[in-house]
């Protein structure tokens, strides 16, 4: 039983991390990044490449993967996304969907379309704790998520950069006037978000193996972000864990097949009953 709960929590943490990436970008730039899941996939593949093709150690490869994907995210913002600021939201959604498709194609061409295993210090190891077998993979996901959240929280609360990011999210023109390098802020937030996705990808790799369709987890992470409230960072994590646990119990106690759609049913319920989720706020046009 504990093993199952741990599994659910771990998967929920991954949803939470991807949702966190969504919310970070949304809060800062008002864009919804439908390619977040595919960035996760790229992170997993990059780490795999460094470990298996170039023979680096796990931790070095992790650091490199984060750096590479974060830089890629920043470059993406500078080159592509900056041009669509000011266009209707629908256009941006389509743009990120298109980008996601390109990433999948790129991964398929560079690394191949099979399923690969990433060797990690946590794979296939377990300890007995209080009479229960606890798998290291799941624990690594949960611990990793907590550490990452701690770091991000400290960054946003105690650093000037975090406050500056909030300013740019409210009103870009005013932020320019206040001397905030808005474009740099955007690229930075994309870098952070992409880095978070990469970490999530690497953490997820031991559990669900590395293949190009890893990115579809992003769709379920949407449910997590909406459940938590689209503008709320802690909400994204709480939402993710909640969805993970709901899926777990749906799989255990409800008929076959419900587990796959449980996240979406939750999403619809939340949108129908309380669109702002658990911690979000409702925005309204002032006339």
């Amino acid at each position, binding site marked *: 039983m504990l093993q199952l709960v741990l599994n659910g929590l771990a998967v929920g943490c991954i949803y939470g991390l991807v949702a966190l990436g969504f919310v970070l970008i949304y809060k800062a730039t*008002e864009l*919804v990044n439908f390619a977040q899941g595919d960035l996760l996939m790229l992170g997993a593949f990059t780490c795999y490449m460094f470990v298996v093709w170039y023979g680096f150690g796990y931790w070095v490869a992790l650091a490199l993967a984060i750096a590479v994907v974060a830089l890629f995210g920043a470059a993406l913002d500078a080159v*592509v996304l900056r*041009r*669509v*600021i*000011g*266009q*209707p*939201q*629908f*256009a941006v*959604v*389509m*743009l990120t*969907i*298109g*980008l*996601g*498709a*390109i990433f*999948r*194609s*790129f991964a*398929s*061409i560079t690394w191949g*379309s099979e399923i690969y295993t990433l060797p990690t210090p946590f794979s296939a190891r377990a300890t007995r704790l209080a009479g229960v077998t606890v798998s290291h993979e799941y624990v690594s996901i949960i611990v990793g998520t907590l550490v990452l959240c701690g770091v991000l929280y400290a960054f946003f609360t105690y650093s000037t950069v975090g406050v500056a990011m909030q300013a740019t*999210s*409210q*009103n*870009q*023109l005013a932020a320019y006037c206040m001397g905030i390098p808005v474009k740099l802020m955007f690229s930075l937030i994309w870098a952070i978000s992409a880095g978070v996705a990469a970490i999530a990808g690497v953490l997820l790799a031991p559990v669900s193996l590395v293949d*190009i369709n890893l990115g579809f987890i992003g*769709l379920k992470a*949407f*449910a997590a972000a*909406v459940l938590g409230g*689209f503008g709320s960072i802690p909400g994204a994590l709480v939402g993710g864990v909640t969805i993970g646990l709901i899926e777990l119990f749906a799989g255990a106690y409800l008929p076959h*097949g419900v587990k*796959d*759609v449980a996240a*979406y*049913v939750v*999403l*619809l319920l939340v*949108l*129908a009953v309380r*669109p702002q989720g658990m911690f979000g706020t409702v*925005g*309204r*046009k*002032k*006339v």
Partner: protein
Amino acid sequence: MRFVFKTSYLQDLGLFRDGIQRNWYVVLLIGLLILPRLVPEYLVDVSLVFIYGLCGLSLMVLAGYTGLVSLGHAAFLGIGAYAHVYFTQDAGLPWMVALILATILTAGVGVLVGLPALRMTGLYLTIATLAFAVIIQEVFTRWDAVTGGLKGKAVNKPLIFGVSFAGDVPFYFLCLAFLVIGLWLTANLLRAPTGRAWVAIRDSEIAAQSMGVSLPMYKTMAFAYSAALMGAAGALFAHKIGFLAPDIFSVLLSIQFLLMVVVGGLGSLHGAVFGAIFVAMLPVAISQARDALPALVGQIAGSTASLLVDRFVKQPGLEPGIFGLILVLFILFEPLGIYGRWTKIKLYFSLFPLYKQATFRRQKTYMRSERLR
């Protein structure tokens, strides 16, 4: 530059701007009628273009004219397809009756999907439709009795009023007829109060309300009409592909439909048709290019380059990447789509040499409060 001289209100009310435009469309129609004589081997592909045109029309009404972006329209296509097949084959109803029932059923589901949507704005609606589509796809997989589940379901050729439409040519005309009727009905709605109300909802919900437009009623109508068109398209689609399986009606197909309306040009009927031509012809074009490109490169750059290119283009998984790339390029550089580019080209020639580059440049909104609706 041609000047359109208007002498009566009826001219503004009509479907065509003037007699000249109407004549061009008549020529187009005649061309389509004799097409089977000219290119009999491509008729099946052109029929698919017509079916996609109907799908594009459906999504154009919802996303292009009413501003409700749906990422799950493939689900409606599936409902229409499965329902039609069930009614004709399992229930043994006449073709027309089955079609009408399938259309009504799909419209009903459209209303159901639209109901929670009444309370949601923009992005949340898009995500909600995505969720619906995944759930409906799961229903297709699980409801064995009606849909045949993962095993799939074979589809017979259409038999309407005792006449078999099994051949390529009759089916082509059937699809063409459906598309023309769909376009006519939609154009009628768009020049009537309903269409205006839809456009009002897209541009400013608050103003629309203050002018007496009931948001719940018109949004529901938009969903129902859009779903009905999709349902009819689904019936034809089922006959075209001959074998139904749940994984056909996936999120990826929905994204292709959205690509269709964006690339075609949001907010115009022409856009739906241009987009359909584009999306239906693209896989054909890609596979032709795959065969031709290495040879071409070989002639220019030598055999090693040719081999490299050959290896590159023969990769599986390249196609979604190309779709994605085209989508990205269109949004970055031609947000008005193919129809937008067509309009710009026509304007260039009609204003020559006075055309200004910035004619179509639009003000962007930088403040969040301006983008909320």
